[in-house]
């Protein structure tokens, strides 16, 4: 059987061993994400919602993180806010 080899470099090591506590499921992320992005948009500059489980989940789940970014863009546009600022705010938190 032919083996396939992948380099285990520092970036991959970090992703394999990522600390994703406190636990939050994908279902709960989906349930809470609309409220989370609105709190993120409405928080004063330099502040952000206290949501460690959501942040841990978004660090560990690329699919949920990508969908959250799109939701943030849409909600920002609805408020007439600069989407780039909104996304930067999300990334600096996760």
């Amino acid at each position, binding site marked *: *059987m*032919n*083996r*396939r*080899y*992948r*380099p*285990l*470099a*520092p*970036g*991959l*090591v*970090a*992703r*394999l*061993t*990522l*600390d*994703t*506590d406190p*636990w939050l*499921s*994908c*279902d709960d992320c*989906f349930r809470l*994400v*609309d*409220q989370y*992005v*609105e709190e993120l*948009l409405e928080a004063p500059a330099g502040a952000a919602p206290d949501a460690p489980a959501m942040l841990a989940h978004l660090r*560990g*789940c*690329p*699919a949920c993180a*990508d*969908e959250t*970014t*799109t*939701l943030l*863009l*849409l*909600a*920002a*546009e*609805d*408020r*007439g*806010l*600069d989407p780039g*600022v*909104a996304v930067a705010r999300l990334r600096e938190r996760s």
Partner: protein
Amino acid sequence: MTAVGSACMGTSAAVAEDWVRALSVPGPLQDEAMSLLHDLMLRAARRQVLRMTPMLGGVGLDVVDEIAHQSANDAMMAVLAKLGSFEGRSRFTTWAYKFAVLQAATDVRRRVWRERAVDVDRLELVPDGGATSEQYAEAVDLASAVRHAINTVLSQHQRRILLALVVEEVPVDVLADRLGATRNALYKTLHDARKRLRAHLRETGHLADLTSQAGTP
């Protein structure tokens, strides 16, 4: 933040005042609400598909629109089915968008992966310190410890899920489809696998190395 546009374009005041009621009570207002909801779903789905077009490999706008329309239609059904669960913790529009975003993202990922095999059983990880790492020896030692832990500490199921999701970067919903599992269950397996690896590396004294290298590209 800087204001760059108007809020909630095109939503009639009567519908926006109470989306749930407008969508629930038969009559002309319901018809308008349905039409507006579909517009919202389409906008959200299109936005998600457009963000993912690099994964689709240079498809045209016709394909983007085809996926977005199908996703919007499916998402609209999901929103209507879940209408009773809307609690008003966010704007209705933000709550509704998330169904279209999820549906579109899932549809794109399925499309991208439909011809691709997932095979982690022949996968072998080779410790690599990183070409530009200043602490090459330590990085190789840590990578060796992680590889050993993956092969000895994790269950076969945890190992396969971890390798598929993190090393092969198979999207979690695609893998769930292939395995007849749920996104939730696979993410829980991934979470537990990472936790077990960290616990083992803490016991072997490698966790400090791990912390110092966190975020290394």
